[in-house]
């Protein structure tokens, strides 16, 4: 129903019937938009200007109207026969004894009463009527901000649920991904960028590979769903890991807590940090340059977080393995060389080459 287009030009409530003399013509300029809107409305009615009279009108018992009949700011009482529709714009419609309407009966701002008559079509009432074509209502700064904030809060809640789910069912992969992000953020970011570039070619290759086999063609729909589900899962896992690290940095807990409930704290804090980032980005949208800059910054930080998280997921094979030692930028000294440490430092005894334990000969005393 087009009455309800968001941001319509004007709302006309026809509260009371006017006291204009009955059966006078309505100025065409006033009527035209009303009739046009009524015609477009599926629950309206099609009328011509000639059908409409201003003020109250009664269709007498012996009257037969071949088309439709309508009143403007006045009640419409029908005791005769109307082949078309009977409409009162700003008034009641009463179908009295002996009255018959073959079409629909419609009252806008009034009531429809069947008082001994009959209606072949439908009887409808509308409490108010909207005029004019659909026009996009410009958003005020406050409305735009509210919209942005509600959107951000919505994402916050969605991601909180996703994060909680990951904490509950995929804690080990999440920890592995978070560890990779902590120890090798640059490598994770690089892997994320490369992985993003490879998404489209990988998808095309997968489809081609499936298409060239008879069995593969059958599974293409499932492969498409699976591909994007896996992609979404990887992005979610990676982003939640970034969020956990962000939250952990805020709370000072950089190692992560194994308890689920305790892990909610960094999750929600990290998400809140991103929420604040986006709210700040959108809050000043109406300012022009500053708002745009803040939004670009929010988008850039979020992209970096998503990319690094995605990269960490790829590098750790969805958190199933630790980051390869060979890839580490500065490998830690291994235990086998510890004995070569040259000089004791600040009073620590020098390491000795491991030697086999002396055999017990009983002569030590």
């Amino acid at each position, binding site marked *: 129903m087009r009455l309800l287009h968001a941001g319509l030009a004007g709302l006309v409530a026809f509260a009371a019937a006017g006291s204009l003399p009955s059966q006078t013509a309505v100025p065409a300029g006033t009527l035209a938009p009303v009739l046009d809107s009524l015609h477009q409305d599926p629950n309206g009615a099609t009328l011509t200007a000639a059908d409409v009279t201003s003020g109250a009108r009664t269709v007498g018992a012996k009257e037969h109207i071949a088309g439709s009949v309508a009143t403007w700011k006045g009640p419409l009482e029908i005791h005769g026969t109307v082949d078309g529709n009977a409409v009162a714009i700003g008034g009641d419609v009463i179908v009295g004894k002996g009255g018959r309407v073959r079409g629909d009966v419609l009252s806008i701002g009034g009531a429809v009463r069947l008082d001994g008559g009959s209606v072949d079509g439908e009887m409808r009432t509308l409490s108010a009527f909207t005029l004019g074509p659909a026009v996009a209502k410009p958003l005020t700064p406050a*409305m735009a901000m509210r919209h942005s904030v509600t959107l951000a809060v919505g994402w916050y809640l969605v991601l909180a649920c996703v994060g909680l789910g990951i904490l509950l069912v995929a804690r080990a992969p999440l920890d592995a991904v978070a560890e990779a992000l902590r120890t090798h953020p640059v490598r994770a970011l690089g892997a994320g960028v490369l992985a993003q570039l490879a998404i489209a070619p990988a998808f095309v290759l997968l489809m081609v590979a499936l298409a060239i086999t008879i069995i593969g063609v059958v599974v293409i729909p499932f492969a498409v769903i699976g591909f994007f589900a896996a992609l979404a899962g990887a992005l979610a896992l990676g982003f939640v890991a970034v969020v956990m690290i962000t939250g952990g940095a805020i709370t000072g807990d950089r190692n992560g807590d194994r308890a689920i409930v305790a892990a909610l704290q960094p999750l929600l804090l990290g998400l809140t940090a991103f929420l604040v980032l986006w709210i700040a980005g959108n809050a000043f949208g109406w300012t022009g340059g500053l708002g745009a800059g803040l939004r670009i910054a929010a988008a850039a930080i979020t992209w970096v977080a998503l990319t690094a998280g995605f990269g960490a997921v790829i590098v750790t094979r969805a958190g199933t393995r630790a980051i390869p030692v060979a890839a580490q930028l500065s490998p830690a000294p291994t235990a086998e060389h510890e004995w070569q440490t040259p000089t004791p430092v600040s009073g620590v005894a020098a390491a000795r080459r491991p030697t086999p334990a002396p055999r017990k000969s009983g002569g030590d005393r």
Partner: protein
Amino acid sequence: MTARRFLAIAGMLVLTAPAAGAQSWRTFTAQRALGREDSLRVVVSYGLGKFLLRAAEPAALYSIDMRYDADVFRVEKTYDAASHTLRVGADSATAVRFNLSAKNFRGSNSHGRAESGTMTLYLARGVPLDLTVQLGIATADLDFGELWVDRAKIEAAMGAAAISFPTPNVHPMRELIVDAAFGGLSIDHLGNARARHVRIEAALGGGEIDLRGEWTGEMTIEVSSVLGGFNISAPTDVGVRVNSTMRLAGMGLKGFTKRGDAYYSPNYDAAKRKVIIIAVATLGGYDVRWVAP
């Protein structure tokens, strides 16, 4: 700061989420007189608010009373006289809106008092009804008393749904399907539906199924639930057989005996009317209790 405090903050964020813009509450009514219709197919699609279904006045084919926020919803209603099909509902005019605050779900009038959109649909008595109801985030109260429901499919995405059959259906119902996703479901006097086959699905909520009513012969109820269970009230004169598939779920079948794969009530073999319950539950369960007919 404890995790509990964080959850409280998260809850506050939900409740204090900004409200929608100004609201324009309107009413819409439509009524059509009963003519020579020998059936009526009704498709209801109602997105948000409260939906009620009742029997219409004797002379009416259908009657609709709707109150809605014109800023958010648009009313859809068509009637095809040739196929006797009524399509009615109110769906969001602005597609997906992420207004999560309680105020937005309920709306508010100019005085700030919370209120909700409502739709009441009255349907003809004495005309076989083929009913499809699709509800979004809505509470539903469907009273099928005095109606002749030939087939009904009711889907409720989120919100409590109450279905009742206070009087016996004029003729046995061909099919009754109820799918209540979230929010709970109660079906009162299901026996009065006189349905041979009933399918009930629920997730997150479960509910109550009352089998009282006037039916004869055998009724099969397929019921499945996830995260929630059903309390099934069976009249004492009805023989009950239960075939169950429980996954991390249980069945409360006091006095029942197991024969083969099914559980039988003590009166099953002697009962003149019987109900076969095919129950599937994951994380929840069912409880069959006895009530006076």
